[in-house]
């Protein structure tokens, strides 16, 4: 009986202290850490079409189409299929593909989740955080590690 009363006391204390841990989402945007990985942002200006991101992607989320002179034509990324592992950002030698902190994306059909390079370019920053900037100290830890020079194919 004492145990039951203890449990009732604990719940009552929580009910009366008025503290809540709910985040009222659309009104208060949740805090995300600088390392958070969200929707990709792609910069065609930076990209050198080395196709490393396409190769490293574990589940073929990235599709790159090149013409016969190996100039890039299309850069498609299925953000609904992506598992947000950040390997593409890791292998990119020129920071052309980034994972922003933006986690808010919707679509009516799953096909709408296939972003082309224009859509990827227009992905907004979340709260104006530039992830490259906030993760910058760590980036150097990856580049330059491993054997030999970065492979541009």
């Amino acid at each position, binding site marked *: 009986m004492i145990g039951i009363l203890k*449990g*009732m006391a*604990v719940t009552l204390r*929580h009910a009366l202290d008025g503290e*809540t*841990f709910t985040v*009222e989402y659309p009104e208060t945007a949740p805090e995300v850490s600088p390392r958070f990985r969200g929707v990709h942002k792609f910069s065609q200006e930076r990209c050198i079409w080395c196709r490393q991101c396409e190769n490293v992607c574990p589940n073929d989320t990235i599709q790159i189409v090149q013409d016969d002179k190996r100039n890039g034509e299309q850069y498609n990324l299925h953000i609904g299929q992506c598992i947000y592992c950040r390997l593409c950002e890791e292998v990119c030698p020129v920071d052309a593909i980034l994972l922003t902190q933006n986690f808010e994306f919707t679509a009516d059909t799953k096909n709408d989740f296939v972003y082309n390079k224009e859509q990827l370019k227009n992905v907004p920053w979340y709260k104006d955080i530039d992830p490259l900037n906030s993760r910058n100290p760590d980036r150097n830890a990856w580049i330059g590690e491993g054997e030999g020079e970065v492979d541009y194919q």
Partner: protein
Amino acid sequence: MSLQAVLPDTISGLLGLEGILGDVVGGLVGAFLIANIMLIMTAFAGPWAKRKITAAFGDRIAVNRIGPFGLLTIVTDAVRLLSKELIVPEGVDRPAWDLAPMVIPFSALLGFAVIPMGNGIQLADPETGLAFAFAAASIASLGIVMTGYASNNKFSLIGALRAVASNIAYEIPLVVTAASVVIFAGSLRMSEIVAVQAEPLLSVAGVTIPTWFAFVNPFAFALFIIANLAEVGRNPFDIPEAPTEIVAGFQTEYSSVYFVLIYLGEFIHIFLGGAIAATLFLGGPAGPVLPGFVWFTIKIWAFFLFTQWARSAIPRLRVDQFLEIGWKGMLVLSFANLVLTAIIVGVIV
């Protein structure tokens, strides 16, 4: 003999009707009023208060999007539930399956007919009032058995059988404990039970404590509340529903309007349980300053709050343990209480 005029008489008196016509009109209007009061309370309790209370215990906010404090959720929930498709599973036993959702809420509403709610709000005041209230409340179990039997679903069947088992096991201690109150009061008539409790028990520093039976016999009150929790099927005795064990128990197959009716019925049942407890042990509508009806409302909401608190804080018993407590614990204790009360009353009076 009634201590004060019951509601139908008041209404027919106001309308200036007499004879059978007055009885019929007064009765209908009175019943309509009381049923609506209870339904409004249930509407507050079900979609809104329950969520808010549970959320408070779990450190959350709960509904707050629609209307002030999310109160309009009641409306949207009603629209949502009523506009859903009524799914009739294959092989259900049609008349019983359709009747059960009506039996459950209306049996609980029926019990309110004899409850004095203060300010002369009482539909009828028969000499066997208390027995009537218990009898009406138990019809709900018939409804539950109908749902379980007619649903053609094994989970429903288990839920219904559990409901029957719990009802038999806990109805007896409930009634026997109530009988000890009847010995004190010397009457089954609800208004007289309330009237007896109005007498002062003792006076401390100018504050008079009335002879509410909860003060006179706290042990019986505790027994009654526990048995009542089982009777209305709330934690730790919510075994007829037991969502993690048997999905939703007897109401597994119900959707849409039928589900709303069953859901309503459960909440009205909680309020009826609270109303009987308030009448028997807490002086009914009695209370200082505020009018009787307000006190009555506070008391039944307090019981509702208690059920929700228990739901948050107390684990569910297993069905065999539950029955063991009922038959070996509650039954013995309630009879002991009855005998003791009878001896004490016999010696004093």
